[in-house]
């Protein structure tokens, strides 16, 4: 690996981590779309900042753009609070308006500034190593690595200090407010960090892809864990994996680095969506199938319990008596037999002692919904897992 290659991957990874952290809270607060809005509406802030400083990495530019980001949130909330339109409509009204101001500003001054709409939308990581941080002629590495490094550091320090506040205000804003942890302060704090992160990541990955870096890792992690800290950890991990795999696939395909990173994130999400242990599509379908079988099993056992007469319990007649739906009767009878709940003698099915106990317990649970009695059954039967 050459030095620029290492630097690009390093920048990509730092950008991905910095985006993933606020992304987790945006996803949990159901505010993913706000990141999309901010990423577009900061454009006028960047353009004006660029006119003044002629440097995409200048702190003034970042602050100006972040202020535009906060302005977006304020405007969206102001329009929404009129009660005339819903939040999604308000977002759809605000960010294109601000974005177009930025586009016009660029077009009017195209001759003077080195900034074009393509770069704004997609960014270009490959050029990042060329812009160096030089102090007294000494090379301290790429400027954007320093910018994103500082953004990430701010994000990490705030996350560490205010983890508990972020958690409670995200989960239960009412309690948070009653406890004196103002959800409004937390909201605007998160919005500020998100804005600064988006501005910082902007040059590297552009206005469209930065949204994917914020939302995709968090959405993927959400499917895999039910612990906030692990969700943060996994999001960071997915971000880094996407940065490195994305870089190398871009290398092989001779394609855009940011585009490849986002594609990798998309693939990771798709795989997780399909194969996640509990929330994944396949697991959900399997569970539903299993539940259908188990409902049929209980119907079957109840029928046996209710009928002493032999003709009602004959294996050949069971099908019509119970009117099986969707589940094959053989599956159910096999399941019952495998669990020693029934015995079959000369084609007549009888409940065993275990089968009888199970039926009564299941019946009681269905009627009373009292969980504690069926705790020990939860490992064996999906039906009782809630």
């Amino acid at each position: 690996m050459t030095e620029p290659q290492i630097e690009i991957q390093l920048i990509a990874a730092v950008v991905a981590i910095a985006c993933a952290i606020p992304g987790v809270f945006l996803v949990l607060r159901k505010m993913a779309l706000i990141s999309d809005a901010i990423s577009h509406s900061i454009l006028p802030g960047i353009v004006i900042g660029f006119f003044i400083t002629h440097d995409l990495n200048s702190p003034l530019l970042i602050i100006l753009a972040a202020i535009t980001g906060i302005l977006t949130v304020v405007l969206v909330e102001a329009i929404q609070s009129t009660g005339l339109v819903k939040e999604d409509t308000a977002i759809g009204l605000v960010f294109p308006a601000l974005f177009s101001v930025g586009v016009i500003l660029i077009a009017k001054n195209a001759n003077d500034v080195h900034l074009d709409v393509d770069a704004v939308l997609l960014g270009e990581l490959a050029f990042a190593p060329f812009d160096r941080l030089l102090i007294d002629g000494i090379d301290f590495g790429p400027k954007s690595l320093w910018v994103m490094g500082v953004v990430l550091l701010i994000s990490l320090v705030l996350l560490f200090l205010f983890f508990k506040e972020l958690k409670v205000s995200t989960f239960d804003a009412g309690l948070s407010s009653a406890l004196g942890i103002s959800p409004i302060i937390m909201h605007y704090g998160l919005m500020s960090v998100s804005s600064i992160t988006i501005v910082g990541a902007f040059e590297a990955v552009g206005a469209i892809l930065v949204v994917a870096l914020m939302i995709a890792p968090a959405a993927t992690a959400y499917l895999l864990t039910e612990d906030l800290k692990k969700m943060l950890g996994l999001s960071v991990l997915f971000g880094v994996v996407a940065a490195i795999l994305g870089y190398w696939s871009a290398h092989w395909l001779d394609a855009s680095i940011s585009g490849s990173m986002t594609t990798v994130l998309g693939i990771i999400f798709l795989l997780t969506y399909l194969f996640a242990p509990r929330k994944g599509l396949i697991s959900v379908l399997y569970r539903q199938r299993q539940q259908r079988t188990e409902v049929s099993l209980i119907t079957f056992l109840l029928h046996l319990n209710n009928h002493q007469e032999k003709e009602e319990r004959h294996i050949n007649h069971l099908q019509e008596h119970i009117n099986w739906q969707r589940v094959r009767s053989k599956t159910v009878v096999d399941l019952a037999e495998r669990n020693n709940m029934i015995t079959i003698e000369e084609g007549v099915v009888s409940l065993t002692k275990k089968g009888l106990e199970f039926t009564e317990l299941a019946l009681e649970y269905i009627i009373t919904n009292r969980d504690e009695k069926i705790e020990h059954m939860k490992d064996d039967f999906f039906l009782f897992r809630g």
Partner: protein
Amino acid sequence: MKEQQPAIQVDDLTVAYNYKPVLWDIDLTVPEGVLMAIVGPNGAGKSTLIKAILGIIDPIAGSVAIYGKPYKEQRKLVGYVPQKGSVDWDFPTTAVDVVLMGTYGKLGWIKRPGKKEKKEALEALEKVGMLSFKNRQISQLSGGQQQRVFLARALVQDAAIYFMDEPFQGVDATTEIAIINILKELRKAGKTVVVVHHDLQTVPEYFDWVTFLNVKKIATGPVKDIFNDDNLTKTYGINYKVAINK
């Protein structure tokens, strides 16, 4: 000082959403140590009253005093059980972690809960019969269990006054009994408890104090004196008869 002051004093409280008043000029005095139900039809402003007292929403007029001082100075004396439906139970966290949130108020900003808080949280879970579920993901709990987790969270707040927003809403028998036991225990300990309540039948059984509310305050006082058909009719607007036990 406490003996002299009412637990909760509300004066001329008016709350409006989009300039439409949902609470109108409420005066309310709640003495220390009562178990009070707030009853009224849907949209009467019952939850809003609690939220306004707790400073979650800003009133357009009026004031609230907890033991004679503004709520902001008395936060640590107050515990809160919000409506169960007000939060997203798919949030990635466990039962004990939710209970720990009740300690955040006393901890203040930045400081994290430690061993002492963890112990209190586990004790509270035990009180509501949920200790064995301590590490269960909250999405995996039944509705009643989630309500008991909320109750445990309020208990670790170790408050003098508790506000509970419809704790009996849609809960199973086990949870209802658990809540009643907690209410009794709180009363025995001399706490003041304010509960938004829907089931009029159980008011005389569970509570000793009641407030009738329908945008305006209709009546407030001891259940045995004012829980009658007259006030029910005034509150619910129809000729309301309820079979009052005893």
